[in-house]
């Protein structure tokens, strides 16, 4: 791939960085990143990945844009209310960088379609807002040997890690073997979330995704970051592979994808918006 004058100008400020150059920019152009959820985390992540010149971005979300999304889901505008989030997201990303190919999945991601969807991508960024999806994405990434950049937010707190069990690191189930019972962890719609916190964690995810693609810096594999916005504090924990992990441990009990129920205690028509949603 030969860079055009316009591409050199567009990416000049990152191409001059040590560790990127033309080779790194080419890696980004060839990269295919799948983003689960076009919400609070997926929005800032997708915008910065598109701006950086990631060649293909997959965007999956079955929801439509609603007014209460706009406080944090910056892919969408007021005029997009009612549109499928992936359509609105694609419009934003393409207007920012027409070079980026945006592949959209306006369907619920389930145990029957997730492996087929993520197979064609190099890396998965999880911005899902509920535990069933979070576990489904983790398990599918394990079976498909895809690097997973995991982020989560609630109220003023955020979490970040990179899971790469195919390269020796832990998976999400090493930390949390099973989803918590529905109702135990409050959802964003119950507990609230500060939009800027979604932005911070979503951009950390984008940053880690770029590092993984470029092969630069210190990976978040084996590290778990906890962020609190009110204290502006960062706590980092070392995490290890759990030999008793039901998925990637020595005697795994999970051999295929599990569809956890999206339990509905609130009156939502879309299962993804059920009361179990905790993470946005």
């Amino acid at each position, binding site marked *: 791939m030969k860079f055009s004058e316009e591409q*050199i100008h567009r990416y000049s400020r990152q191409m001059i960085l040590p560790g990127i*150059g*033309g080779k790194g920019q080419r890696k980004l152009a060839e990269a295919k990143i799948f983003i689960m959820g076009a919400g609070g985390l997926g929005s800032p992540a997708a915008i910065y990945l598109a701006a950086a010149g990631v060649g293909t971005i997959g965007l999956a979300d079955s929801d439509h844009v609603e007014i209460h999304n706009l406080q944090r889901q910056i892919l969408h505008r007021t005029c997009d209310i009612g549109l499928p989030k992936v359509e609105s997201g694609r419009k934003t990303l393409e207007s920012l960088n027409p070079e980026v190919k945006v592949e959209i999945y306006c369907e619920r991601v389930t145990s029957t379609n997730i492996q087929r969807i993520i197979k064609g991508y190099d890396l998965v960024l999880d911005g899902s807002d509920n535990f069933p999806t979070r576990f489904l994405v983790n398990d599918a990434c394990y079976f498909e040997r895809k690097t997973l950049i995991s982020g989560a937010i609630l109220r003023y707190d955020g979490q970040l890690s990179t899971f790469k069990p195919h390269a020796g690191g832990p998976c999400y189930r090493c930390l949390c073997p099973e989803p918590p019972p529905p109702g135990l962890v409050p959802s964003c719609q119950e507990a609230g979330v500060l939009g800027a916190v979604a932005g911070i964690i979503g951009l950390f995810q984008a940053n880690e995704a770029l590092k993984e693609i470029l092969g630069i810096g210190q990976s978040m594999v084996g590290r778990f970051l906890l962020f609190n916005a009110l204290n502006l504090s960062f706590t980092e924990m070392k995490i290890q592979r759990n030999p008793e992990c039901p998925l990637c441990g020595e005697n795994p009990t999970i051999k295929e994808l599990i569809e956890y129920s999206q339990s509905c205690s609130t009156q939502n028509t879309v299962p993804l918006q059920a009361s179990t949603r905790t993470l946005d």
Partner: protein
Amino acid sequence: MNAYLDREVRHQVTMEQAEETIAEQKIQIDKELNLKGKVCPYTFIESMLALEEMKIGEVLRVIVDYPPAVCDVPKSLKNEGYEILDVSPTNETDWAILVKNTEFK
């Protein structure tokens, strides 16, 4: 600012001009890149992109006419790990930077 840099660079270059011109004659050039009319950081980026395409040990001759680039391009290429063989004026407005593609990283 540009005029100042221009004077500084010109002075520096004139001091070593004779010696460097001789040095340049001995060096085999594998590729030439004309970046006249281009400014920083594009002068550096385009030089780097050309070097990335070249074999280890090959020499690139870059022509620039933007005064800050005469200092900045060699400095940035050196930071990346490339070897600067020579920087010298070719006429009233242009400079030639000779850089060798080296094994690094």
